[in-house]
């Protein structure tokens, strides 16, 4: 297991370099220059533009820029944001908690609801509870999260007036002040994820429950709860953990749009604004850190997979 972990962690390095390279070239494909955004509506002379341009290193060739950029970035230096007057990493770290709260809470909710519901549906296969959970998960996956967000706002904020419609306050303002603004975004974010996890849990549980070793476990006289939770679930977990990891990555991507709906000042919003402002450094840093989280979760999932599946652990 140690060796496996080491190997997986080492394989992380090329992945990161590939990620950074993709980010660099895709963001530099974006038309329009950061200078235009920086100077806004005013008329500025050509000399001034050149001055700013060379100040920002934009007058060099793309390859030169890349070769200067990559080593710096690998040491964690994404430069200074054009607009935030602060190091990119600093700005990203300011926003990071918001996105993390959103995605992690959504993930926790997804796991707490999705896996048990999927297990329940699998053991009630073909009965009403199974169909009900199928309808629920199919609808959840079909609804666009941002639309669901608005429906939740209409219901809980406008009609019932129980929760704020959007915005964010840091925990400094009090736990409830903080938490109550995350409830609706987390709900909107989770529903599709729950749908996915319910379906995958159900499917892999059904696969597993049809296996002979489940019959065998029952034949040993084990109570049904142990059969399902010990013998079936651990086998199904290999697949479920993969889906959970994938769902987390999808959630990180989806957070961009949810942060937009609920006006949460997180990484997603930062990335959208940076894209509009052509704040290359900010955009690159933002996307990289968002992707990095996805990669780390992926790694964790791989390790979990190995943990649940001795065959991988020993031979993989």
């Amino acid at each position: 297991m140690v060796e496996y972990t080491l190997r997986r962690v080492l394989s992380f390095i090329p992945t990161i370099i590939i990620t950074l390279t993709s980010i660099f070239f895709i963001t530099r494909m974006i038309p329009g220059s950061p200078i235009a955004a920086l100077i806004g509506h005013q008329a500025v002379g050509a000399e001034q533009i050149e001055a700013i341009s060379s100040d920002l290193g934009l007058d060099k060739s793309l390859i030169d820029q890349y070769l200067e950029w990559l080593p710096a970035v690998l040491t964690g230096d994404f430069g200074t944001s054009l607009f935030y007057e602060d190091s990119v990493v600093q700005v990203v770290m300011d926003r990071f908690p918001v996105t993390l709260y959103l995605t992690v809470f959504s993930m926790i909710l997804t796991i707490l609801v999705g896996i048990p519901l999927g297990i329940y549906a699998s053991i009630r296969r073909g009965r009403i509870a199974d169909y009900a959970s199928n309808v629920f998960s199919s609808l959840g996956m079909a609804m666009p999260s941002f639309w669901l967000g608005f429906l939740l706002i209409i219901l809980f904020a406008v009609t019932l007036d129980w929760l704020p419609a959007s915005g964010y306050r840091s925990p400094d303002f009090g736990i409830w002040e903080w938490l109550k603004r995350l409830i609706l975004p987390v709900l909107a974010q989770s529903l599709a994820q729950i749908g996915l996890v319910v379906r995958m849990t159900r499917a892999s549980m059904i696969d597993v429950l049809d296996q002979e070793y489940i019959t065998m476990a029952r034949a040993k006289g084990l109570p049904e709860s142990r059969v399902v939770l010990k013998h079936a679930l651990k086998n199904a977990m290999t697949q479920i953990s993969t889906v959970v990891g994938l769902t987390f990555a999808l959630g990180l991507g989806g957070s961009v749009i949810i942060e937009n709906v609920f006006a949460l000042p997180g990484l997603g919003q930062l990335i959208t604004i940076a894209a509009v402002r052509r704040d290359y450094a900010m955009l690159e840093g933002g996307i990289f850190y968002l992707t990095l989280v996805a990669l780390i979760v992926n790694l964790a999932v791989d390790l979990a997979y190995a943990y649940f599946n001795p065959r991988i652990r020993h031979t993989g």
Partner: protein
Amino acid sequence: MSLILISGCGSPKASDQSSGSDGPVRGGTLNIGLHLPLPTLDWQSSVSHPLPMVFGHVYEGLFGFGRDFTAAPDLVDSYEVSEDGKTWTFVIREGVTFHNGDLLDSEDVKASLDRWHRIGPKGSGLASLDGIETPDSQTVVMNFNAPMGQFLLLLLGSDENKAIVMPKEVADASTRPGQVTEVIGTGPYRFDEYKEDQYVRLKRFDAYSARSDNPNYQAGKKEAHVDEILFWIVPEASTRVAGLESGEYEIITEVPDAEAIRLRDIDDVDPVKNGPGVLLYLMFNHQQGLTSDINIRRAFQAMVDPSEITAMVVSDSSFGKTYSSIYSPESAFNSSKEPSPSQSAEAYLNEAGYNGEPLFIQVIATDIVQQRVAVALVEQAKRVGLNLQIQSYDLSTWVARRRDASVMNMYSSAGYWVDPSLWQPEFNGTFPSEEVGFSNAAADELFANLASATSLEERKVLAGELQAHFFKEVALVNLGYIYRLVAKGNSVHDPHGNLALGNLTLHGVWID
């Protein structure tokens, strides 16, 4: 001059009257739901919308807008202008301190004006400045090589980019646009904290030295009743409204006018119609492409139906207005009107030999007003056989394309004009770039005459001539006026009616 100050329902604030006997209460936190994040803390370098709303309370200029949208003295105690309009001498009020405790003197004013001139979007109006002298600590003398009749208004930067005053050390150290080292002003509130995209906190500046004359919008005696002002960044309009209703915010900016009808029916919330009227107007590429043909521009002039356009932009008809002048209905120059087009749009298109070629209006994807204007224009163009299409861009691409004569046809803009000379930066031939802009000797001459005209009557006549000239040349097309909606909870008292004026100004505002 008639100002529309009171909310659309026509009932003056009952709460204000009833509480009038109690007088202002000191203290409390005022929570504002602000519609946009601050792109920068450097107001001097930006015309961005929310900046005046926040920093108007932190910084002061030599002058500020008065209730009648003329320049009223603020940091200035007295001033005089030479006969030729080229030399302006200001005497600064004594005993004004910055938020860092330093005393304001003429060097600070000079450094601030220099920086504004250098990097301020509206500071470019000082092109004819020869130099600034500071004969003593309270006196600033500015010399121009041309008459500057509009100078005081210019200092107000259309209420978007005012010539504010900051300490000399800060002004000198902050060389790059967008990056001010410290936010230090002389206003009644001091800047406390900005949490990126979350909130801005201002605290009352207890050492503030107010003027002694009557409160007058952004000038006169400014009273700071509340202890702190928290501007919450809430880009989502529905959230701002919900927050207002739940009492989370006391005041919210940029309320969708669709909400006005509903808000009037809610007891503890007051909608406030905010003026002066904002002109929506269409700007063209005057140098290249189809729109360089005056007959095409005239077709647009003849084709537009401002009543329909404003109806599309605002949802509540009381917030739109058709008004055939490029000066705000609330301004002193509201007497002169545009004539009517003499031919139909189809006839102009015929003259132009137009044959269904596509024309493009470029919009900023995130700008709802621009988008709505464009949608309406496209449909109106369709009716006269003009093939107009929308091109939607992010802000910076939009800005870049606007300067590019080979791709730009037209865009819509919005703003209020309370003085004819304020049009000068838009039509001096360099805006948005020399390759695109409107440049015209007759207009230049009119602007020059305005610069040396000091009497209101004289200026009014020139304003009328300028408008007629713009109409004839179709420098721009008037698309109608809209009013903005601000809303407050009725715990908020605004004895001077400042919330109905221009950008959010909270002087004199107090809460129960």
